[in-house]
């Protein structure tokens, strides 16, 4: 087995007595000493700091259309205003999701692409193969660190250290600025459903930023366990669980991130799905107890197995089990009842709308 990679903050996590586990080829903090639910609550009420250095960053410099980038994703890159970012997909020929990612328009002919950790190498290979070769396209993941500061207090913390100017950033906007004397990107994005920022900076400076932000009493570190609960409560997809190479954005209930007015790999298959319908779709459901549905549990409608769970957890905000799974479209009716089963365990659930949790500060 390949050796797990470590982020520049690995020793800080060990000092904080983090529980470390493999994630996407990296040895990452799952939780710190306070536990997942306490970290989750801190993020919903105060401000949590996540080490997200494992995620990948690519830089593209060149003409967007001539260099081929405009045709690579399910959304238009050239229509993103400079200073803004957009979420969408890299698809395979069959319309399956190779990755979900965010593109940052740094300048007229310069973008940064932020991808999932486990998919960095494959994404880079696939994107490169679709480019004309005239642009400068490179993987800057190792040199680039990323911290996520998330929670209703995140703006107050950020402006305390780096000035009021950053406090005006709207959702899905970013600014290239200087943090701790080095070039950095501050982006008003996140994966928690709370007001928050993703901070990109050179790897050599990340430890200093980590320590500075943690020096504020409103900030506590949180691990990937809390991050997973936070994102599920607001219905964000997790790559590798809810979306993958055999799931299309239309099946996954994410058509708003697909622009059919442009060309992209996988478009033909998606057009066919849009015309003829899909055989399975994403549903969200609430369990009638505190039991947790979990990945790969079976979904039944009456006595018939109709699908499986792709994400599930106990929701601290709702006080019940919540989950996401895939079922035939005819069964994906809000308000209808499902049974979730696994071995001896059985739980009753009701299909609901997303997000599960609606009171987050994300647009605050």
């Amino acid at each position, binding site marked *: 087995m390949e050796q797990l990679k470590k982020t520049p903050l690995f020793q800080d996590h060990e000092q904080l007595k983090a*529980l470390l586990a493999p994630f996407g080829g990296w040895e990452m903090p799952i939780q710190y000493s306070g*536990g997942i*639910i306490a970290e989750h609550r801190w993020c919903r009420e105060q401000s949590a700091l996540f080490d997200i250095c494992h995620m990948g960053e690519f830089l593209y410099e060149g003409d967007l259309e001539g260099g081929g980038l405009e045709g690579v994703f399910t959304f238009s890159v050239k229509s993103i205003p400079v200073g803004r970012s957009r979420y969408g997909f890299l698809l395979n020929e069959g319309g399956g999701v190779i990755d979900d990612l965010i593109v940052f328009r740094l300048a007229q002919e310069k973008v940064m692409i932020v991808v999932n950790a486990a998919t960095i190498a494959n994404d880079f290979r696939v994107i490169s193969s679709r480019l004309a070769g005239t642009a400068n396209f490179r993987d800057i993941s190792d040199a680039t660190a990323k911290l996520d500061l998330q929670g209703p207090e995140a703006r107050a913390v950020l402006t305390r250290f780096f000035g009021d100017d950053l406090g005006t950033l709207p959702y899905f906007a970013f600014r290239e600025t200087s943090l701790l004397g080095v070039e950095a990107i501050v982006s008003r994005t996140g994966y928690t459903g709370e007001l928050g920022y993703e901070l990109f900076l050179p790897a050599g400076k990340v430890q200093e930023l980590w320590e500075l932000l943690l020096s504020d009493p409103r900030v506590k570190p949180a691990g990937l366990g809390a991050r997973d609960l936070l994102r599920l409560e607001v219905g964000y997809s997790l790559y590798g669980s809810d979306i993958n190479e055999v799931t299309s954005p239309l099946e996954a209930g994410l058509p708003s991130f697909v622009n059919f007015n442009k060309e992209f790999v996988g478009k033909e298959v998606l057009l066919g799905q849009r015309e003829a319908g899909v055989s399975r779709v994403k549903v969200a459901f609430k369990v009638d107890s505190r039991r*947790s549905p979990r990945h790969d549990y079976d979904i039944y409608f009456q006595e018939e197995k109709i699908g499986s769970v792709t994400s599930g957890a*106990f929701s601290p905000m709702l006080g019940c089990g919540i989950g996401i799974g895939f079922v035939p479209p005819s069964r994906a009716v809000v308000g209808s009842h499902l049974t979730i089963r696994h071995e001896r365990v059985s739980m009753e659930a009701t299909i609901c709308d997303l997000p599960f949790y609606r009171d987050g500060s994300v647009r605050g």
Partner: protein
Amino acid sequence: METYFTKEHEWVRIEEGVAVVGISDYAAHLLGDITFVELPSLGKVVKQFQQFAAIESVKAASDIYAPLSGKVVQVNDAVEERPETVNESPEESAWIVRVEPSNLDELQELMTRAQYEEFLRGLE
């Protein structure tokens, strides 16, 4: 009063002839934040080492096995309502059930605290 342990990390203590059962401090710590406890029904007859309750945490779902045979005479409703109390006091106030034991000789199949601690060292 001597507390006995199973390899599945349940504990049992005989108090006035009744067996009080819970999960060990080690198990509670390993599970992390406990979010759900499934209690058996009152009067249920259980056999030693058979599954008779369940516990879930943010990280995992796990069965609870009877350390002794007998009949369930009381369940701790407090852990059903507030599962997090199992993290706070797994070997004291957050007991799970009380069982009227049918055969106390079965205690010989269990570990003493010293033996259990030795067993845990072997797991590391």
